[in-house]
């Protein structure tokens, strides 16, 4: 019998400084891109996310959203039924009917995303056309866009990538070639505001954020647009922006004191900010961040940390933990490794570190059980079982839902890794 699963391949010469890259195929234990809706709908405050999918998709959203059930949320699922599978005409008609009812009920909605799922993609439902048709009907009140959050196309945070990439063609073209900064990737408002202040002090501007807080605030793109990624999982969005002529500023991601400074410096250099002004704008924040982080260093230094693949934040997080807190990464799992975007991060990792791309969850569990890192960063499906086996874990989803970027959050970020260990140290049961 032949087995289709490829043997894991190893890249990178062992022994030299390059990380060792293990590519695996097997069962993946990760969310699909639909999950990004949980934070995207909080971020774009007049957008509605309508998943065109199955009961499974609805159940996933509900399970991932957990406690947020209290409100009438700005997301829902159009659940396909037997009849919709029989003929695409029926499915399209059903979708129109649902959108009519939805928009009638929610006049506050200005932007509607039709979000594709595995079932809608397998039956080849053309949500692009549906979105165009609906846009024609509802513009100028409501713009209807589409993207895929399906599990066959996207992993967890890639749902945000697909969503933002869908916004790029909607961005107006700015006639002037004036330099403008676009910060790309959903950030908590408090983080956005902090960055805004720092950029203002440096004299960098105008500054826009993608996604915007409101649909109408979608910034324009011009010949002078420079963009910087605030999140590491935005491959398609970056490509779409570059295709529109915007230029990417390469940098590590703004996690930790060092990461934030390097990220800000990359922007400063593009704007020819003098070292003095840069220092004025960042020194205080950086110092405060370093102080906050150093309080936690004692607790974490020398401890080994391993990551299961989840959000693509794993590599920047491992860099932060190793360089600012003295932790030793054992294995850094990532669902996908974007070599170009990750290059500045990879350069900062300890030499010879193991990065695993893709997943074979059972083999990976074997490795973690053998390695027994002091802290395992993993998803919700794995955390309790590993705790029961005596491994300390940190739920990775919290790293996606909490504000962790920038100087003022560096201490909080370190604290997220301290807490599970501190808790274990206190418990006597």
């Amino acid at each position, binding site marked *: 019998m032949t087995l289709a699963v490829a043997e894991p391949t190893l890249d990178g010469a062992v022994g030299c400084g390059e990380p060792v890259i293990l590519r695996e195929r097997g069962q993946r234990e990760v969310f699909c891109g639909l999950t990004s809706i949980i934070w995207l709908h909080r971020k774009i405050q007049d957008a509605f996310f309508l998943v065109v999918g199955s009961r*499974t998709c609805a159940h996933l959203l509900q*399970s991932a959203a957990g406690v947020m*059930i209290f409100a009438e949320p700005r997301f829902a699922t159009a659940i396909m039924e037997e009849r919709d599978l029989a003929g695409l005409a029926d499915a399209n008609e059903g979708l129109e009917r649902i959108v009519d009812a939805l928009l009638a009920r929610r006049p506050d909605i200005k932007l509607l995303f039709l979000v594709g799922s595995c079932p809608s993609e397998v039956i080849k439902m053309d949500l692009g056309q549906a979105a165009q048709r609906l846009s024609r009907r509802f513009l100028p009140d409501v713009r209807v866009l589409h993207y895929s959050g399906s599990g066959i196309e996207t992993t967890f945070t890639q749902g945000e990538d697909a969503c933002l990439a869908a916004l790029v063609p909607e961005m107006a073209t700015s006639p002037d070639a004036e330099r403008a900064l676009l910060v790309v990737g959903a950030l908590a408002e408090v983080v956005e505001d902090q960055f805004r202040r720092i950029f203002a002090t440096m004299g960098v501007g105008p500054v826009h954020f993608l996604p915007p807080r409101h649909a109408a605030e979608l910034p324009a793109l011009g010949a002078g647009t420079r963009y910087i990624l605030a999140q590491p999982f935005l491959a398609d969005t970056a490509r779409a922006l570059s295709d529109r002529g915007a230029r990417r500023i390469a940098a590590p991601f703004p996690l930790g004191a060092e990461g934030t400074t390097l990220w800000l410096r990359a922007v400063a250099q593009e704007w020819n900010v003098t070292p003095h002004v840069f220092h004025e704008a960042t020194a205080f924040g950086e110092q405060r961040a370093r102080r906050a982080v150093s309080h936690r260093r004692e607790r974490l230094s020398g401890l080994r940390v391993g990551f299961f693949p989840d959000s693509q934040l794993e590599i920047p997080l491992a860099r932060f933990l190793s360089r600012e807190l003295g932790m030793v990464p054992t294995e850094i799992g990532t669902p996908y490794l974007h070599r170009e975007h990750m290059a500045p991060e990879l350069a900062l990792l300890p030499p010879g570190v193991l990065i695993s791309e893709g997943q074979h969850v059972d083999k990976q569990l074997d490795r973690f059980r053998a390695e027994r890192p002091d802290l395992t960063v993993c998803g919700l499906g794995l955390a309790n079982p590993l705790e029961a086996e005596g491994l300390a874990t940190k739920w990775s989803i919290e790293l996606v839902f909490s504000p962790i970027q920038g100087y003022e959050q560096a201490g909080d970020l370190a604290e997220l890794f301290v807490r599970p260990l501190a808790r274990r140290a206190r418990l006597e049961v």
Partner: protein
Amino acid sequence: MQLAVWTYEGPPHVGAMRIATAMEGLHYVLHAPQGDTYADLLFTMIERRAKRPPVTYTTFQARDLGGDTAELLKTAVHDAFERFRPQAILVGASCTAELIQDDPGGLARTLGLPVPVVPIDLPSYQRKENWGAAETLYRLVRTFAGPAIGTPRVAAARPRCNILGPTALGFRHRDDLVEIRALLERIGVDVHVVAPQGATPADLARLGEADFNVVLYPEIADQAAAWLERVFGQKRTRIVPIGVGATRDFIAEVGALAGIDTTALLAQATSRLSWYSRSVDSNYLTGKRVFVFGDATHAIAAARVASKELAFEVVGIGTYSREQAREVRDAASVYGLEALISDDYLAVEAAIAAAQPELVLGTQMERHIAKKLGIPCAVISAPVHVQDFPARHSPQMGFEGANVLFDTWVHPLMMGLEEHLLHMFRDDFEFHDDAGASHLGASAAAPVMETKPETLSWAPDAEKELRKIPFFVRGKARRNTESFAAGAGLTTITVETLYDAKAHFSR
């Protein structure tokens, strides 16, 4: 296509997972994309299970679709067998894999594994979680229960039964099982096999040896029990022992099936609920308006307890279990009601708002609805939440279960004496309407803005009269009066209108 904001049930393969996870020695290979692995967290986070569910997902991706998803499935089954060495393997598809029609069962069989492979086809676009659980249990029982080869019954042996129904992620199944085991012991019946909870495929093979079956959750186990009845002539219980009356009926039913005289047991068996409910301070519970919503089993049982054991007034009853709609309709007719059969959260919300209950007995969803409407609520049914797995023993079934029901349903309400005192002292200087919940610190909450139709106004004396109504029911009185006035086409609410409305709404 159906719009779902929140869903009461997951897809049918989650039902199959609940069976597989409850059992031992069984592994489930699910042909599904990566995102479907979220289902693991239901078990590891909501139920806090210490082990991963025994489920392998093939996690095929778009690039596999043109190629060989079938090969991927075979590999997954093969690897799962090698790694976990189960007694049997369940094979099935989730919604997406159903569309690509790989025939997981047929493919898995070609591997020639030395253990049984049980294919389960769950139509994801028609059915839901409970149906999936029932179908899976039924398939497994059919596959393994085989012809009766039971050990010869010894004449002196006590009668024995199987307990069918408790699953992983079930609403209080863990504690109900403890309660029912103890109850059967008191009746004098031995428990032979419990399934699916804790059973191996080999245990299922012994099902036919018991004298009869106890069906705890008909949504899940009745289909399998009906098959066992046909094949082995094993009778099954029909009464779900939730509440004092139902527990007593259940004892009598089991006694009849086992040929045991339960008169003595029934004479002494009782629950604190019975006495607490007769205690004078429970007087205030009389006629409280309750709205009941849940799975069919729990909704029907809750309505009976509410009406007969707490003397509440059932003003609404409904279920999201379409498969058991008929049973719920029958139950509703007992209370002179039309049952609400719906899995549309918004429809349930509208029905509750319209019924104006004083207490909601529902699921976690109704808890949120009730919170929004400012009505007390107790949770009686799945879908489960982490709170539905309390650390303490907290059954719904049996006499102890009835005690739990009394506590959890009555505590959200204002206590009788409290309500009485509030009445007596409503003009007290420290205890007046605008004071906070406590005179120690914390100022009064901002008054709630009442919305009323623009054209409707309150005459000053009516407004003054309204202020005499205790604050905790004033909002309702105001709303009732306004809706009454609007219905009557009035524009001004007078004292007369207020009392007309009171008469209209009083029971």
